[in-house]
């Protein structure tokens, strides 16, 4: 047994000699930096702007690429631990959740505010405070193949008539194509028929108590869609990619899609034109607006620096133009928007003029999947529109009730 205690003593001795030598407090010295998370498409643009900022402000901008779909989730993990970015790019419908968790710092635009489109500022405003500096505002538009459909249809009835003619004559397999379970793309159709998700009041916002998924207008819109599928004018089983594939191969004459799709449709070589989304019996279609912008982390080490970067460097004609030229999305910066003369952008702008902000209220989480399922069941001809939508509305109301019960319990 003797040798064993000897061993232990040796170990402890060696350890004690080595340990203090190795003990050195961590050194944290580095130049002033500003970390920005940005997706692949916009990384090169900001990467290109970084040297200018370093030049004028003496601060290095570190660009870290994070997939757009991952930014929010990664931010939630990293920010509270002090490892997140100072600034990141995101969509306006993220703010409800991030603000509720205390992860975002409000943005003070000062006098710059008047240069932004009011709709974009509204979209990034949550409970009276602004949480993002918008830089693009997008909405859906109506795509058509001008060789098949020379004139833009005015109403959804026109869309049906044109489809009947084209399919009847055997010119194309399908007239109008749409994703099978995507509320985002069907929303303009619903609003044109008078349907709604939540009652919306200008200046007040959405009222989660008034669910309009099973409103008369919504049912009418789904009946129209149901008829299209039944008569073989619209196919079932489509997702975003296959919807595009049909349009891009000339097998479908019309669809609804966004500015992001212009590049791929052009690349396909199919002739296309974009116009305002057709009206319905209840008036113009109202697509969701989707606004993107810069947000500032509440856990930024240097929030003032982040605000200076946004207010003095990004919110300028030069930077906003560079952002637009790097990736042509309709800008939220009015001086640039006025100068742009891109006919496609103007066409989207006409639809956007009637757009409404995509709800950022937490209740939306209960809506998307029920709404999408209803759409799928109708298009797959498994349920009648009224029945499917009433089921969905029922599910949504139950979910909202349960959520609210929980909140009241909590407080």
């Amino acid at each position: 047994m003797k040798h064993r205690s000897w061993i232990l003593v040796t170990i402890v001795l060696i350890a004690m000699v080595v340990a203090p030598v190795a003990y050195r407090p961590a050194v944290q010295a580095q130049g002033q930096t500003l970390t920005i998370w940005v997706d692949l498409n916009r990384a090169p643009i900001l990467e290109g702007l970084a040297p200018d900022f370093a030049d004028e402000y003496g601060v290095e901008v570190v660009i870290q690429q994070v997939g757009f779909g991952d930014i929010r989730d990664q931010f939630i993990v990293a920010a509270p631990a002090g490892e997140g970015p100072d600034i990141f790019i995101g969509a306006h419908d993220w703010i409800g959740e991030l603000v509720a968790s205390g992860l975002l710092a409000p943005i003070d635009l000062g006098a710059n505010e008047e240069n932004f489109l009011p709709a974009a500022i509204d979209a990034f405003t949550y409970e009276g405070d602004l949480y993002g500096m918008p830089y693009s505002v997008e909405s859906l538009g109506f795509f058509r193949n001008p060789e098949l459909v020379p004139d833009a249809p005015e109403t959804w009835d026109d869309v049906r008539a044109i489809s009947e003619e084209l399919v009847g004559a055997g010119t194309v397999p399908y007239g109008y194509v749409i994703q099978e379970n995507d509320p985002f793309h069907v929303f303009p159709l619903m609003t044109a028929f008078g349907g709604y998700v939540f009652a919306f009041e200008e200046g007040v916002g959405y009222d989660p108590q008034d669910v309009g998924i099973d409103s008369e207008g919504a049912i009418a819109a789904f009946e129209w869609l149901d008829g299209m599928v039944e008569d073989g004018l619209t196919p079932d089983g489509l997702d975003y990619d296959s919807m595009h594939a049909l349009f891009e191969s000339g097998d479908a004459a019309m669809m609804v899609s966004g500015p992001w799709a212009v590049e791929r449709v052009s690349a396909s070589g199919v002739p296309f034109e974009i116009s305002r989304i057709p009206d319905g019996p209840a008036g113009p279609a109202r697509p969701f607006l989707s606004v993107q912008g810069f947000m500032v982390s509440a856990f930024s080490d240097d929030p003032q620096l982040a605000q200076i970067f946004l207010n003095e460097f990004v919110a300028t004609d030069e930077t906003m133009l560079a952002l637009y030229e790097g990736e042509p999305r309709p800008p939220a910066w009015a001086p640039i928007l006025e100068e742009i003369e891109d006919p496609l952008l103007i066409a989207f702008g006409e639809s956007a003029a009637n757009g409404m902000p995509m709800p950022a209220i937490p209740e939306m989480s209960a809506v998307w999947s029920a709404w999408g399922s209803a759409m799928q069941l109708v298009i797959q001809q498994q349920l009648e529109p009224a029945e499917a939508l009433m089921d969905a509305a029922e599910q949504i109301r139950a979910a909202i009730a349960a959520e609210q019960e929980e909140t009241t319990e909590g407080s």
Partner: protein
Amino acid sequence: MNAVKKTGRGSDGPLALFSGSVTGSLLLLGGLALIDAFALWFLIRLIDDRVWFLALAVLVVTIGVNAAFLSRKLYPFRWFSPGLSLMVLMVAYPTLFTIYTAFTNYSTGNLLNKTQVIERIETKPEYRYLPDGEQYYDAIPFRNEDGKYLLWLVGRSDRQAYIVTEDDEIEPVTPEQAGIEGVEWVEDGDPPIRVEGYEYLPPEDAAAVLAERDTLDYGYPVGEVSIRLIDGPAEVPAGYALDPGTLLFVDNTGRRPKEYQAYLFRAADGDDLLLYAVDGRDTLLARPDGRVVINGQPYTIGGYRMLSNRERTAITQVLPTLTFGERDDPIYIDPFSASRAGRFRPRFLYDERQDAFVEQETGAIYRPVKGTFTLDRASVSVEAADELPATLSPGYYVVVGLDNFERLLTDQRLRGPFVRVFLWTIAHAFLTVLLTFSLGLALALLLNDRLIPARKIWRSLILIPYAIPAFISTLVWRGLLNPRLGLINDTLERIVGAGNAPGWYSDPMWAKIGILLIQLWLGFPYMMLICTGALQSIPQDMYEAAQVDGANAFQRFRHLTLPLLLVAVGPLLIASFAYNFNNFTVIELFNEGGPPIANSSVPAGHTDILITYTYEQAFGSGGGTNYAFASAITLVIFLLVAAITIFNYRFTRSWEETSRNV
């Protein structure tokens, strides 16, 4: 050392790892000492910083490793101490954390800890108030040679300019401070200003005066300037329509050098020159005493001068800590803005004694309720209470006991088609394992035949599916199975006629078959690989012995290959089952659990498995993140899997026993 040598001889000696040689023992000891030294260093620092969990983990691991290497009884542990150490560090903690989370309210709105929340609520710009009659200002910082600061303030409501320093109270700006005393603007005039005590020099005269001087220096930020007379239109820069005989001034103050039209004035009582320059939008006034005003904004005030962009970004951390004006009611710079300043005060302050927030205007108290500071309505009048927010945001995470599990059991929305989903979950996992194993084993056996030519190439090619990340394969299959456009239905329709091909997206049965097809494709190369390995480690002489005994091929497979194979891969099949029980990716990416079940009380699909179904209920799509509830679901699913696993484990044990008798 003799003692060491002696005990080291037997295979179970404490230092037997190196066959009992002295060098081996020394190496071992040295290694252990190094590990301990490192662990001790790490521990001291961890304890110093009060990182208790990690300290505990390191301590446990170190003691464990030492015990395993120094104790004879713990000899077997020596072999897996490296592995076990890693597991304790890297796996046990995250797992325990998830279990802990299941008993908290860690979710959107409650993602921070209490310290962070208290700091947030106290500093958050949204929770501030300006006393009556106060306004916010836009502030521009100036600094003098002693490092003291002055702020040039412009009221956001009254648009008036003020000045405040660290010592003196806020005052409206005087014309001298603004650098515009004696200046009078002339609408559409040439020159556009008149200055008291100065005489305007027309371009030709100015050129003559300039020719006599070496330099003109206006100090910060203009510095030495170059002013020249344009003689002909050829020299006029693009964008400017200047007459010949105009003075041009090259500015280096702004973001980019630019050129202005310049006007020079000479002091009536001397040779001093005053410069005024315009470029259409911007104006610049430089006085001979070094005071410069750009767009109405002075660059120097008294001994203070405006900070450059670089100087300002360097002090963003310092400036918000300073106070300006009156000592007991100071003006602050807002850390959450590029320019805002004012007499703002935090609206809610934390009182440690009461463990509560106090509203500063009314004295209302907010006490923590399940991680959220909630208004105590008894602390204020009813009218005041209605005006105040009911809770403060954000909340912090706390242990809430069994709340999440209660919700799991009582939530009507979760019950719905639960049994249906549960059965498919099991069927899906079981069939996936069965199919992949069967095909993998069949291929391994086929390729085990030495007569097959180019076996290497066959095997490599068949392995490729496994080398493609599962999520792209799933998406590819989704495209292949597309009922309208997919290659598969395209081909099938040519055989069975248009419209008769299976509805992979809409028909519940075909959707399930589709998922199994994908799973089979994703998984069979894995099974082939492990079966190949396993077949190879079955000693050849056993087959020879069996052959001598006259067993035919099937008998040999049934009684020799299969049992031995199962011993080797049995645990893996169980693991594979457990993995597929929770295989979120494939189902979510293929069809999100669809097609939807009609007339269901909650959104649910025919191919939903437990994990996709419950996640859908817990999060919807794109909603908040309820980690706590998800952890509770995970825990319950884990218990189910664990039960199945332990049940299977008995079989593994029996296989293990079988192997010993072979």
